[in-house]
């Protein structure tokens, strides 16, 4: 199965919509609740990052009997130093993002902690790609 969702940069009202849809779909497929929680927490963190930092983005979801692969590709400023961005507490978020309850530099480390596999690549002034893979029977 393949699904795609569009993300609008700066639109915090809609942030989390795609993660919510993914959660509903996984529940319908009777995936283990622990796996669902780790998947949607990771996806939601990544979705909020796109809303907070990028101009726009797309979430590509591929699902089979063994796993779900979620790729978030955004068009935005990119991340100059990924190692630094992965450090807990490091953040370039605006005050508006912090007022929404995010931007404490915990998103990327939390995605890494929850995901079975996590890949991130980025190009400055182009955008960032995040790939989250979760296995159902791990």
């Amino acid at each position, binding site marked *: 199965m393949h699904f795609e969702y569009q993300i609008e940069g700066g639109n915090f009202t809609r942030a*989390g919509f795609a993660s919510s849809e993914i959660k509903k779909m996984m529940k319908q497929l009777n995936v283990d609740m622990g796996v669902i*929680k780790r998947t949607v*927490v990771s996806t*939601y963190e990544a979705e909020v990052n796109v809303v907070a930092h990028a101009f726009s983005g797309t979430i590509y979801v591929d699902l089979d009997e063994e796993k779900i692969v979620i790729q978030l590709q955004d068009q935005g400023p990119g991340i100059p130093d990924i190692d630094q961005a992965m450090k807990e507490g490091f953040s370039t978020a605006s005050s508006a993002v912090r007022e929404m309850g995010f931007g*404490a530099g915990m998103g990327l480390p*939390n995605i890494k902690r929850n995901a079975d596999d996590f890949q991130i690549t980025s190009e400055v002034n182009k955008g960032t790609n995040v790939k989250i893979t979760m296995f159902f029977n791990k």
Partner: protein
Amino acid sequence: MTIKQISELLEATIVCGEDRKEHKIEMAFASDLMSDVLTLSDNNVMLITGLSNMQALRTAEMAEIPAIIFARNKKISEEMKELAIENDIIVLECRFSVFKVSGMLFNNGISPVF
């Protein structure tokens, strides 16, 4: 404690989930930082917050949080209410501060997450 007992203790209004007043809560977590809430691995944790926006509800949805107390007299919007109902999240509004709510719940046997 049940939601009914919590609402009586805190003089709080149950805005969503009136039909789930017997739902039992054993643990709570107080935060306005949703990033912190998303790191919790426990389920059935009640969230105490003064951050009244859509992301508080979205965070609850993703983190399997069954109930939220909006403290400091924060009110939720109709849009937030719809999202809470859609996701079966119990919502209480309370005029007390986060500190007071936390202290009262702690004194009545609700455990911290850590």
